[in-house]
């Protein structure tokens, strides 16, 4: 299931209905806790779309709480079989600066869709894994053999890189292959 979270709406409901900026740590904590409470009620596996489209400003402290700590909390929560996936949407360059900084701090990567709809992978990830993710994203669903063919990876390397992407919740591993998040559910 795909679950859409409008961060601006969460901000207005949980902190103040006049705010359009996601600033200060207490605000970030309140928004993150509201998101986590909402996610706890969703069936899984699920892909949460964290939508920043209506948020004017995101500062580092809020990015740390709403992106860094949120993703970090789910990193090891599913006993090695990911049930919660995340995509970030509606970000502009200003948001992205803060998000990239916090991803670095937590050694995380996440799929981001900007205001123009362009999808990319941001955060801490090596070039090989990034290329493999691009292949998955291009095809929607692949088997390790396609990574071998397209990237010239040896069989064990292709499986390993895909499993790593799956463990990091950047692709979904299913019986029929490794699936990009937009096509997963």
């Amino acid at each position: 299931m795909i679950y859409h979270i409008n961060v601006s709406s969460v901000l207005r409901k949980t902190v103040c209905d006049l705010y359009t900026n996601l600033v200060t740590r207490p605000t970030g904590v309140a928004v993150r806790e509201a998101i986590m409470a909402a996610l706890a009620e969703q069936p899984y596996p699920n892909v949460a779309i964290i939508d920043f489209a209506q948020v004017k400003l995101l500062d580092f402290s809020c990015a740390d709480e709403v992106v860094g700590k949120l993703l970090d909390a789910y990193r090891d929560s599913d006993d090695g079989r990911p049930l919660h996936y995340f995509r970030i949407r509606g970000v502009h360059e200003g948001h992205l600066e803060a998000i990239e900084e916090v991803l670095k701090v937590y050694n995380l990567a996440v799929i981001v869709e900007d205001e123009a709809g362009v999808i990319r992978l941001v955060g801490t990830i090596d070039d090989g894994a990034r290329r493999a993710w691009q292949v998955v994203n291009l095809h929607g669903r692949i088997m390790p053999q396609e990574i071998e063919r397209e990237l010239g990876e040896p069989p064990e390397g292709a499986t390993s890189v895909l499993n790593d992407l799956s463990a990091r919740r950047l692709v979904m591993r299913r019986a029929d292959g490794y699936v990009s998040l937009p096509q997963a559910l």
Partner: protein
Amino acid sequence: MTTVITVPPSLDDHSFEQVLEQLAPVPLDQKVLIDARHTRWSSPYGLTALLTLAQTRGTQVAFTGPETEETASYWQRAGFYRYAEELFEMHGHVPRARPSAAESNVLLEITAVAKSDDVHDVVERIQAKAQQILVNELNLDPMATMRFAMTLSEVCQNIVEHAQTTGWVAVQTYRYRQRLGRRVVVIAVCDAGIGFRRSLESAQGRKLSDRWDDAMALEDAVIRGVSRFRDPGRGQGLAGVRRYVGRWDGKLSVRSGTARIAIVPSWDDDLPLREQLSPLPGAQVQITIPERVAQR
């Protein structure tokens, strides 16, 4: 007995040290009068630091403001008297507020910051005006408005998270003739709270070195991004501020206790670290962003 502390004619982050030097030998419970009658100009740092100073004394500080109408009127429009009348025992003429007299150089009049909501308020208020000044007048790229508001948010949050008392923020633009000959936008954020050294000391299990002092606490917080909180995302706010200031060829200075650290751009000749200054509790931050000029 009342000790008279003379405010210099031009009050900025450097000349404010003269105020503190005069104040240093005066016992905390002794009455002082801050005499700004001959002051003709003040930076936002000077005004917010004066308010901070009022919070640090054991007895209420007396204050007499600038004699020149132009200066007094400017201080009024910058929001100084709004809080000065609450903090100081006022002497002499206090200019009346004129609601219609908007000051185009004041991006953000002096504003009290004590809680998270105050930071939201500051950020909401600065955005529209910052766009006009930063992009159209200081020739910074449009993203600068966003980064500027983020910077303001992070430095104001330092008060909320660490000061444990009310602090003050102000943002103004002016022509910086002395060193630069260009327009600048200046953010000043001052509080009389616990300061960086005590804030870092409050971290559980923190081992302090033999030379632990205000200067080292500033180096830890400003240069190394150390925070009293243990979780990894802490300390990023000031690191982000440092990064932005560097990108704008700007200057960041942070004073706390008896030390002051500065990230100094090429257009300035300030010292990166000053120690053994006259004491002032809390933290006082100044960010100076110069007008961008075309490369020749």
